[in-house]
Structures are given as structure tokens and as C-alpha cells.
């Protein structure tokens, strides 16, 4: 599903003395099946964008287009609900939203809420639980008897069960250990590839941005300050630091080497690329002798 923001503004408590502009004149397009990272310092407007994408709030001015379907300030609430059916959002620490007696029932809640029969909902739930790799032996257990990582998988299955076309991930790996983080991000990459999902990832983990995203939106003080691919974004460390953002470790290390006099390409974003460039450099110099 394609998403377009056209001159979107959002003001909290508009028309009151407490009016506070959160987003100013936002314009961008997200292509169907893109994996977009949304990055920015705390308070830059990321959460407001997520709420707009999920139809929880409407733009104060401007339009949001979902495959051409327009959402603006005048859109009735029930039309927002239609959009919401296509957008799955995984909030931070989603496991805190589990509530049902069994894993299966918890995952069935979303589809039933959108009007599916219990039979249909169960099929969707089982499919979603398979997608998150939770073995069937857990399905009849209480979600509260599972480990933290498993609980998070159940919560994510609950989002996938509504078969969204857009999946929004808000810091999905916070609090997990490194192996758990890797498993979670690999799972999303597989979903992106196999289910044709459009993914929007909100994160502070620049390693993940470099590894998984093909498109990056950088927000600062309610404005979109850069929209490019990860290589372009991470090529300017000084600029990112001004936005109080980090670069991936590989970029930081490359820049340190360059400062020491190494001549290395600019488009390095991960450790494998860095190792390869160093190999060429070390071998290349060796051959010249």
C-alpha cells in the first residue's frame, strides 16, 4: 500500500491557548512494499506521525493518501476505522496489551473486532501465530505464562492477524537481549519479503536502519529534514550529530580510519562492507609493491 503525506500539519489542542504545533508542512511518499525507517530525536514528531498513520488522529491541515484514499480534517471517524484495518501498529512493549485467557483467543481478538466470525478469526490467528514462529503447543496456554520474548511474539501475531498491508513498528526490540533482537528483526525482514508488507520502523538503533531499511525519514522539531536511502543519510555524520542522532558503528569506525589517513569509500554502512573495503585496501596496497 502506498502512503503519501501532502502538506500535513498537526497541532495539539488546536484553537486553545495550549495549541502546540507538532508537525509542520510534511510532504513525503512511501512506496508499496518499502521498508522505511523513521528516525529523530525524542519530541521530533515521530509519535504524531504514527498516530496519523493509524487513524487515531486526523491532520489539522493537509491530506494523507492511502492508495489514493484521502484522509483530511473532514474525514468522518468511521472512514478512519477503514484505514485502520489496513494498518497494523506494534507499540513499544506490546506484550503489556495482552489480556485474554489463552494465546489463541488473544490473537483472535483483532480480527473479531473487525467483524470476522469466530471461525474466520481462528484461522487468521493460527496463520499469524505460525508467522511469528510460536509453536502450536503454546496456543492454548495463558499468554502470561510465557517468557517475555514469547509474549511479544503473541502481541505481534495479534497485529498480523488483521492482515494489515502496512506494519508500523515502534521500537520493537526495546528490552530484548542481542539474540532476541536479531530474531525479532529477522522475523520482520521475512514478513516484509514474503507478505508484501509495507514496513515503517521507528527506532534509535542505527545498525537496524542500515541493515533493514531501504528508505529513511529524518524528523527534527516537527519537520522532515531529510528523506533518502541509508547510505546517503549516514554519509554525513556531523549533520546527524546536529540532529542528536548517531551513525551505525561501522560508519563511526570508517570515519575514524579516514581521519587517520585511510582512504575508504563513503557508502559503507555495515561491518561486512567495511571489512571488504579494508581487504581491497590492504591487498591492493600490497600488490603495488
Amino acid at each position, binding site marked *: 500500500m502506498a502512503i503519501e503525506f501532502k502538506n500535513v500539519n498537526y497541532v495539539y489542542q488546536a484553537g486553545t491557548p495550549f495549541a502546540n504545533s507538532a508537525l509542520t508542512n510534511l510532504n513525503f511518499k512511501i512506496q508499496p512494499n518499502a521498508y522505511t525507517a523513521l528516525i529523530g530525536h525524542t519530541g521530533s514528531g515521530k509519535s504524531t506521525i504514527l498516530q496519523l498513520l493509524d487513524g487515531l488522529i486526523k491532520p489539522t491541515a493537509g491530506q494523507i493518501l492511502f492508495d489514493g484514499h484521502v484522509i483530511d480534517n473532514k474525514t468522518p471517524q468511521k472512514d478512519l476505522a477503514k484505514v485502520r484495518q489496513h494498518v497494523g501498529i506494534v507499540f513499544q512493549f506490546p506484550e503489556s496489551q495482552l489480556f485474554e485467557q489463552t494465546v489463541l483467543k488473544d490473537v483472535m481478538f483483532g480480527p473479531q473486532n473487525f467483524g470476522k466470525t469466530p471461525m474466520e478469526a481462528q484461522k487468521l490467528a493460527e496463520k499469524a501465530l505460525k508467522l511469528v514462529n510460536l509453536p502450536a503447543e503454546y496456543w492454548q496456554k495463558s499468554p502470561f505464562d510465557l517468557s517475555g520474548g514469547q509474549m511479544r511474539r503473541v502481541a505481534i501475531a495479534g497485529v498480523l492477524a488483521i492482515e494489515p498491508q502496512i506494519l508500523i513498528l515502534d521500537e520493537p526490540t526495546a528490552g530484548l537481549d*542481542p539474540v532476541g533482537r536479531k530474531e525479532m528483526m529477522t522475523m520482520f525482514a521475512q514478513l516484509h519479503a514474503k507478505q508484501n508488507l509495507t514496513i515503517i520502523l521507528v527506532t534509535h538503533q542505527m545498525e537496524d536502519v542500515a541493515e533493514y531499511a531501504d528508505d529513511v525519514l529524518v524528523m527534527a522539531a516537527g519537520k522532515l529534514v531529510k528523506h533518502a536511502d541509508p547510505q546517503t543519510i549516514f554519509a554525513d555524520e556531523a549533520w546527524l550529530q546536529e540532529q542528536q542522532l548517531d551513525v551505525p558503528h*561501522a560508519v563511526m569506525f570508517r570515519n575514524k580510519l579516514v581521519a587517520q*589517513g585511510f582512504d575508504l569509500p563513503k557508502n559503507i554502512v555495515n561491518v561486512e562492507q*567495511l*571489512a571488504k573495503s*579494508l581487504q581491497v585496501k590492504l591487498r591492493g596496497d600490497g600488490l603495488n609493491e
Partner: protein
Amino acid sequence: MDNIIEVKNVSYQYPNSDYKALDNLSLTIRKGEWVAIIGHNGSGKSTLAKLLNYLLVPDTGELIVDKQPVIEENMWTVRNKVGMVFQNPENQFVGATVADDVAFGLENRGISRQKMLEIIPMALKEVHMEAFADREPTYLSGGQKQRVALAGIIAVAPKIIILDEATAMLDPKGRKEVIAAILKLKARLGDELTVLSITHDIDEAADADRIIVINDGQVVDEGRPAEIFSAGPKLLELGLDVPFAEQLKSALNNLGISVPSKYLDEEGMINWLWQLNSKM
């Protein structure tokens, strides 16, 4: 130096659980030491922290904190010695303002109002949050919240601070702020403060004097950070990120470039690469 924490053959199993969270675990921590405890999710790290503060009671074995056995009659004495900062900053606020929140621990200990008025600004200053004394905690960033939680602990001057994944939920800036605040406190108090940090964060672990690795409820390894970090990619299994220099080493190794086997930090790695480059 004296041992400030002794854990002797401690086992603990959660009700309804099929396995022991801690299985005959023993360790000692010396007064003034900064120890990082690492292990993957579910390895038993947090259980250990809770036992030290008598939030949980061991099934078997014994814990001693500053010469006091951790048992019911000593519960309050022990808790006075051990301050804990938990993972989720939202879960540990009780005060309506930042200053009230720092006051909570002092009130619990029956400190006079006059004394509190001296201690609270000092504690907030220690973590650079003095400008926020009258603010509502809700409006603070994660890093600021954790620093206020830390101020609440500094105010009651415990001998031991336990950080239970205290930086896990923070953004990189917040993480740096909290680590900087703890480093500063430790530098000021020296051996009067023992720090136990339970963490997955490589930078936090690198600040420790010693790292203890826990897996399946048992101590599986311990050593200086450089010793532990030299495990390279195996660190992932232990629940820790692999330091970048080690990641690069194994990536180079995979490409057929022979690399030194001993642990190199980033600077060491740069020097090594530079020497290799100039030799060619």
C-alpha cells in the same frame, strides 16, 4: 578489600516454573568493586538482584550483604544498604514532582524535613536534574526519569547500587547520560560505593572492573572486560553485544585476513590496521 556481597550456593525456582532460575549459584563481590553481570534474557540475572534485596527469598543457600545475612529480620537493614534502579522508568515514580519523588526514600527512613531540604537538591545536582525539581516526572524523557530514580537512591546513600538493565529502555543519548551520572558518582565515592550492573549494553559492561557471566542460573565465566570481550562472536550467546572491533576482526578473518587473537578495543584495532597498512 572485604567482600561486601557473598552469595553461597543459592537456588531459586519461581512458582509454576519447570526449572531453577538460579541453580546453586555462588559468587563474591568486593567492597568498592564495579561488577557487570551479563547473561541472556531468562538467565537468572534479575532474580539474583531481587534476592539480594530480599524481594525474593532463596529456596536454599545463603546471601550476605555487608556482613548481614539477607533474612527477614534483617530485611530493612539490607534494603538500606542496597539501592536498585529498575529497567522501566515509568514503574518507579511515586512523587507528584521530581523533588517529591526523591524525598520518598528519605521520608520512609524518617529523615527530618530540614535534612531533606539539604539532601534533595544535592542528589538532584549529582545527576544534573536540579533544574527539574518542581516538574512532573511524566514530562521527562526516559534518560531524565532514570537519573531522577538514581537521585532518589543517591539521597539515601546506599553502599551498593544495583542497576537492573537500567539503561535498556533508553535512547542512545539517555543511556550515555545515565552511565555518565553513575561514573561521576562512583568517582566521587570511590570504594565507599559498590556498583552491580545487570546489562546487555556493551558500553555499560566495559566500564566494569569485572564481568560475571550467568547462564541457566549458574556462573559460567568471569574476568576483566578485555578478557570476556575476547570471546568475540560467542558473546552473543552470553547475552551481550559483540564490541565493534571484535565484529570487524571476525569479518576480516572471514575474508581470509589473519587477525590478532587477543582482544583489541577500537583504538587498538585502528593502530593494528594502520601498522598493517604501512607494512604493505
